């Protein structure tokens, strides 16, 4: 893909095929000879882990779809039939449900890795944007998948989220009606969500191909953020990266298996084991954990439309990052101030996640009543979300643009190999 192929067809058949469809060349250049920086650490293994999880979701999903019935009267019981009567159906369903969570664990680590090492900067902007598209598609897929078992949380979560889109002026109602296929979340909604839930993972797979293609044009970033200068800086993908990725995948599967076999419902919500009932609203509707930070941002803003705009804005910031960050130095290893702001950002995202799971008016420090500010006591999750939301946006819109102009980065090494040989080590 990257132009400088070193593949030499060995057999007659390979030569014949290579001049007609150079597919073996493509595979060879992608996963065998592709030069990878020699100093990659374990944070670089999550790309492989993500590919594995996408594959697992597709395989388990296709098997589930053989037994699942997308109909409001049968969906819930068809999932229970899978859990009880289909041979190893419980395994497939638990793998799929927990696999979605693990997929998000991996994607969040992957994204924060990129933030830390500046992997979104030139020449990797397109690669970064393709990654953001994958993340958006994953969110859409997981949201629709969660609706399919048609439990109480499925139904009422779908109602709340689709209603958000109705907040947009002029187009809002048209969009929600189109999503619902009617005037409420009902049979047509479930049918189209199932259809789209089947479709989107294959679109993800398509964008993954583009993502990997872009990766192979620009090459991998590495912990120093210094581009490889010579052959001494890189190693061939196979066997060096394959064996390391394989080891990391195996460790990740241990975590995954622990959830699937020993706490399969820990990440789910009890209410989703109650069949959907439009007339009974659960007292506390929460989305899946991977949406919680955005949900907290949504609820931090008192106005519904502004809340929705803030939530989408939070995602748009991620897309725009390559142009918001003005620093010439990629890796935060050499940006001590940026490192500090980054770790605060990481903590803020986790705090937002907690806020998303709590009731807005609940107290952060139990028993302490301070004073009422605008609409709530200052000691409440809604105010914690507001402060965190402020930081979230400030990180993208203030810190990233200004820091690059004013900070004093540490000296960066000439090549990847020099700091390594010079004895400095991983952080």
């Amino acid at each position: 893909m990257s132009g400088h192929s070193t593949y030499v067809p060995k057999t007659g058949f390979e030569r014949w095929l290579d001049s007609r469809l150079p597919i073996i060349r493509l595979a060879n250049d992608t996963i065998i000879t592709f030069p990878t920086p020699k100093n990659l650490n374990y944070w670089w293994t999550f790309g492989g882990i993500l590919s594995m999880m996408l594959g697992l979701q597709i395989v388990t999903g296709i098997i589930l779809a053989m037994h699942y019935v997308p109909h409001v009267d049968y969906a819930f019981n068809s999932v229970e039939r899978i859990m009880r009567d289909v041979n190893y159906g419980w395994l497939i369903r638990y793998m799929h449900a927990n696999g979605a969570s693990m997929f998000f664990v991996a994607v969040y680590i992957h994204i924060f890795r990129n933030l830390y090492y500046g992997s979104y900067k030139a020449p990797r902007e397109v690669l970064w944007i393709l990654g953001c598209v994958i993340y958006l598609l994953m969110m859409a897929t997981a949201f629709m998948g969660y609706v399919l078992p048609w439990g109480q949380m499925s139904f009422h979560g779908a109602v709340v989220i689709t209603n958000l889109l109705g907040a947009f002026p002029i187009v809002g109602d048209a969009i929600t009606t189109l999503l619902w296929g009617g005037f409420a979340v009902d049979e047509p909604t479930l049918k189209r969500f199932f259809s789209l839930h089947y479709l989107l993972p294959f679109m993800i797979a398509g964008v993954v191909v583009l993502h990997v293609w872009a990766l192979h044009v620009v090459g991998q970033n590495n912990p120093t953020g210094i581009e490889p200068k010579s052959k001494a800086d890189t190693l061939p993908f196979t066997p060096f990266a394959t064996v390391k990725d394989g080891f990391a995948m195996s460790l990740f599967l241990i975590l995954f298996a622990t959830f699937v076999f020993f706490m399969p419902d820990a990440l789910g919500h009890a209410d989703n084991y109650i069949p959907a009932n439009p007339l009974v609203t659960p007292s506390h509707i929460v989305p899946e954990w991977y949406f919680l930070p955005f949900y907290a941002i949504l609820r931090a803003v008192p106005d519904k439309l502004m809340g929705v705009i803030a939530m989408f804005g939070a995602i748009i910031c991620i897309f725009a990052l390559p142009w918001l960050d003005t620093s010439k130095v990629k890796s935060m290893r050499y940006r001590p101030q940026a490192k500090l702001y980054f770790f605060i950002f990481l903590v803020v995202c986790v705090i937002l996640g907690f806020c998303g799971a709590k009731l807005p008016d609940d107290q952060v420090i139990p028993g302490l009543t301070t004073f009422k500010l605008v609409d709530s006591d200052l000691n409440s999750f809604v105010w914690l979300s507001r402060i965190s939301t402020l930081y979230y946006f400030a990180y993208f819109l203030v810190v990233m643009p200004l820091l690059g102009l004013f900070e004093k980065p540490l000296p960066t090494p000439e090549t990847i190999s020099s700091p390594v040989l010079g004895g400095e080590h991983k952080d």
Partner: protein
Amino acid sequence: MLRKVTLLAAALLLVGGPALANTKVREPEPVAFSFEGPFGRYDQTQLQRGFKVYREVCSACHSMNLVAFRNLGDPGGPFFNPEYSAAKGLTSNDNPVVKALAADTQIADLDSETGDAVQRPGIPADRFPAPFPNVIAAKASNGGLAPPDLSLMAKAREGGPEYIASLLQGYGPPAHGVTLSPGQHYNAYFVGGVIGMAPPLAADKVSFDDGTKSTVRQQAEDVAAFLMWTADPHMEARKQMGFSVLIFLVLFSGLLYASYRRVWRNESH
């Protein structure tokens, strides 16, 4: 109407949610169930007692639509007997206890010759018959509140079986300021404190075949364990497979790590 409901749902989320959830509920009391933890398994005699409580008490009001008689004889179930297992070329359908329990019920069916509605004795493949023909009938007989299906109850409530065990023992005089209408009862473990289910258990209401003393607590914990099994019938198989998978993955990871070290041995990194 439905649109109103959806709007109401959104409004409730943003405004009413906090108010509803602030009602004080007592946390379920901890129970040391045999099935807890990674090595936990169901206690078969407890499941048998729990099933008896369900059959003789709860089934008068609550359906159990997802469970069939044959499930009682499946591996991990209350009446599993290795004599009637796949290893012997048989299934739970051949288990005499299961057959007898099924035959003891009447199942609504159609006469295959005439098409007339008939009642016939159950077979192991039948699901547990429901006490009421439909939700309206269930409501009408229970003061307007349909008793929920119990198949998944242990997964459908925060606290699971411990919540159920606490709820069944949690009746008492109403807390200060709570007034009860006829048909309402006070229960500190129920959201809001006011429940439409009369205290279903009483000492010696169910006599246990294994001689266990039939206290309310015993009945409550046994039926809670039974409901955990109905909600998660493959738990034992799941944990068992989990150990094989984890052992394999740990060994495999070790092998991969060794390969990694070997492949990278001459590279400084």
